[in-house]
């Protein structure tokens, strides 16, 4: 049944393409053309919707829906069809979901993806088909360097950039003897190598733990024994909740400060509260970042969903806005991929981080800020920007990318 419908659609598509080609040929000689077709923009959005990372997926999905609300449920003036896919935090599942979106749904854009290992499995599959991959979180170094593609864009960052900012801040503070930790997967390695690029002090130990490991007491005992001056960690999602809680219970919080990236955020803070008070993070975005697009995003998000958005959400919101700008620029002609690439390279939309530019590898050149967990006057806990660490910061891999434009 499904197969027959697909067959019919194939035939329909072919016929439609032929008719369109003839019409376009006729019309271009006569007058300026309107939108080439009235077909809907199809966007496949992949994220983790089940399991421990399901909450991050919810932040992203809610933000995509808010972006569509703000655009009046149209993308670039065309009707939009959104297909959500759950990668379950597994690279193989992510790849299957992407395959289905490409073959069955014939999407024009694939977007989303939290985890770098999933992104490394999915992005090549999508870009090989000359379909756009608009990443909205993971930024593995391979895709910024030698494996860059004109069909890959991201609205987030390259993994190394955020820990680079923390490395710089900690180096500027004159800290040395730092103990660094991350989960053992693609992003964990990027995070620690980014940190080491700017932190020039002594590193006591570099420890990798298992992905989604629930208990860190063994590692915390090792930290106590090593007695470093500071600890730097990357523990996204539930891993962060567990590490930070257990670190506080071990009584180390008062003795050895923890500096982190992607560990304490609007996803984990409600579960951490005072266990994270006073902690430092670096990030390219924060709910209190003051610009028109962000104020609108944050206040409408809170109004619609009743909780505070996170950077995962802001990036996903931006992803839809970036796609909107591309489709708008080619006046709805989804076949004009070169035109959309040119348009997206301009980053011509109102980003929640404020205006930014794209580097040659299609990764943003953007600011990075120092954030701290504070208690707001109404007794809640929130992340607040303290100062700018990097202005218009470029990633370290762009020079390995062969694209020229």
């Amino acid at each position: 049944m499904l197969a027959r419908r697909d067959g019919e659609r194939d035939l329909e598509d072919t016929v439609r393409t032929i008719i369109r080609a003839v019409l376009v040929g006729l019309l271009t000689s006569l007058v300026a053309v309107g939108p080439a077709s009235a077909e809907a923009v199809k966007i496949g959005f992949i994220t983790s919707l089940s399991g421990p990372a399901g909450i991050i997926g919810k932040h992203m999905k809610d933000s995509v829906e808010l972006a569509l609300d703000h655009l009046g449920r149209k993308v670039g003036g065309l009707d939009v069809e959104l297909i959500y896919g759950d990668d379950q935090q597994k690279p193989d599942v992510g790849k299957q979901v992407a395959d289905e979106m490409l073959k069955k749904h014939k999407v024009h854009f694939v977007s989303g993806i939290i985890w770098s290992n999933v992104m490394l499995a999915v992005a090549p599959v999508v870009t090989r088909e000359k379909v756009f991959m608009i990443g909205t979180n993971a930024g593995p170094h391979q895709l910024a360097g030698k494996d860059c593609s004109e069909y890959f864009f991201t609205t987030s960052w390259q993994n190394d950039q955020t820990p680079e900012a923390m490395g710089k801040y900690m180096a500027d503070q004159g800290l040395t003897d730092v103990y660094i930790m991350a989960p053992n997967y693609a992003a964990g390695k990027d995070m620690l190598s980014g940190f080491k690029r700017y932190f020039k002090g002594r590193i006591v130990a570099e420890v990798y733990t298992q992905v989604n490991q629930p208990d860190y007491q063994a590692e915390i005992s090792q930290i106590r024994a090593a007695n470093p001056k500071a600890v730097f960690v990357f523990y996204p999602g539930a891993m962060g909740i567990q590490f930070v809680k257990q670190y506080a219970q071990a009584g180390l919080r008062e003795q050895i400060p923890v500096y982190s990236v992607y560990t304490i955020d609007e996803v984990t803070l409600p579960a951490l509260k005072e266990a994270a008070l006073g902690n430092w993070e670096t990030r390219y975005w924060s709910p209190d970042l003051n610009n028109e697009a962000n104020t609108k995003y944050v206040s409408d998000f809170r109004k619609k969903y009743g909780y505070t958005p996170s950077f995962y959400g802001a990036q996903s919101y931006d992803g839809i806005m970036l796609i909107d700008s591309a489709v708008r620029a080619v006046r709805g002609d989804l076949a004009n991929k070169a035109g959309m690439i040119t348009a997206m390279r301009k980053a011509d939309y109102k980003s929640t981080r404020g205006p930014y530019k794209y580097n040659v590898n299609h990764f943003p050149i953007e600011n990075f800020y120092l954030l701290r967990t504070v208690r707001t006057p109404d007794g809640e806990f929130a992340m607040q920007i303290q100062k700018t660490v990097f202005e218009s910061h470029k990633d370290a891999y762009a020079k390995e990318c062969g694209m020229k434009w």
Partner: protein
Amino acid sequence: MLLVLEQALNGLQYGVMLFLMAAGLTLVFGIMNLVNLAHGSLYMVGAYLATALARWTGSFVLGGLLALPATLLVGVVVEVVALRTLYERDHLDQVLATFGLILFFNELVAIVWGRAAIYTSLPPSLSGSFMLLPGLRYPTYRALVIGVGVAAAVFLYVLVTSTRLGMLIRAGASNRTMVAALGVNIRWLYTLVFGLGAALAGLAGLMAGPIYAVQPGMGEQILIQVFVVIIIGGIGSIRGAVAGALVVGMVDTLGRAFLRPTLSTIVSPAAADKAGPALASMLIYLMMAAVLFFRPQGLFPTRGR
């Protein structure tokens, strides 16, 4: 040396937690011949109920005490409503059905409490650390977990070895048909054993709440290690569960702590950095493979099967 002692305590604490989970799972498997993948869900339910009840009563201890019978009740309801029909079916059907229960409980919890991890706190008297030996500070709560876990193990040991119920449980594990033939209401025994297993999983869950992230899907993260424990220990055996849990807890913890430093004295530090974490996370599975190869019935198999 103190560090080795501290890590051994960490291993013991992890082992105790695994034991509470494994005891229920191995009893249910051994006596009822039921593969219950949803055991992790009962652990999650225990953690959620304890957190919610602690908030409601305003007391951490009271919340925990109320959560135990509540989880037992959930277990009994699950057994009566869903699992009773599965005893005569083969293991694949049981795996499918109990996997369905995992999805059901994860969604149920997400609907009731939301998808985000919920905030759990400890009373100030438990949240810090204390001086165990000069130069060795240990988290108070972790010490409490060890204490409660050991007490539960002793309770189970007494229950299984010196009570009438325990005798029936042991008999059920050895030869179910004979127990039924002797006029024991096997259906009643099954419900009781399942409820007991659920309560133990709930106990593990409620103690895990303040340490781990309480969120949908938290049960699956520990379930795999628990299966490793009962395979190593011998399916259906409480003694095996004790031994398996301690071995897995110790090997995993000590491996994570000392494998990389030890390796770096043998091979180059760079190679140790690469191989250490990967090998440490594989250790318990390698051990399980070895047990399956040399002693497929486990370290302490139940007799008469």
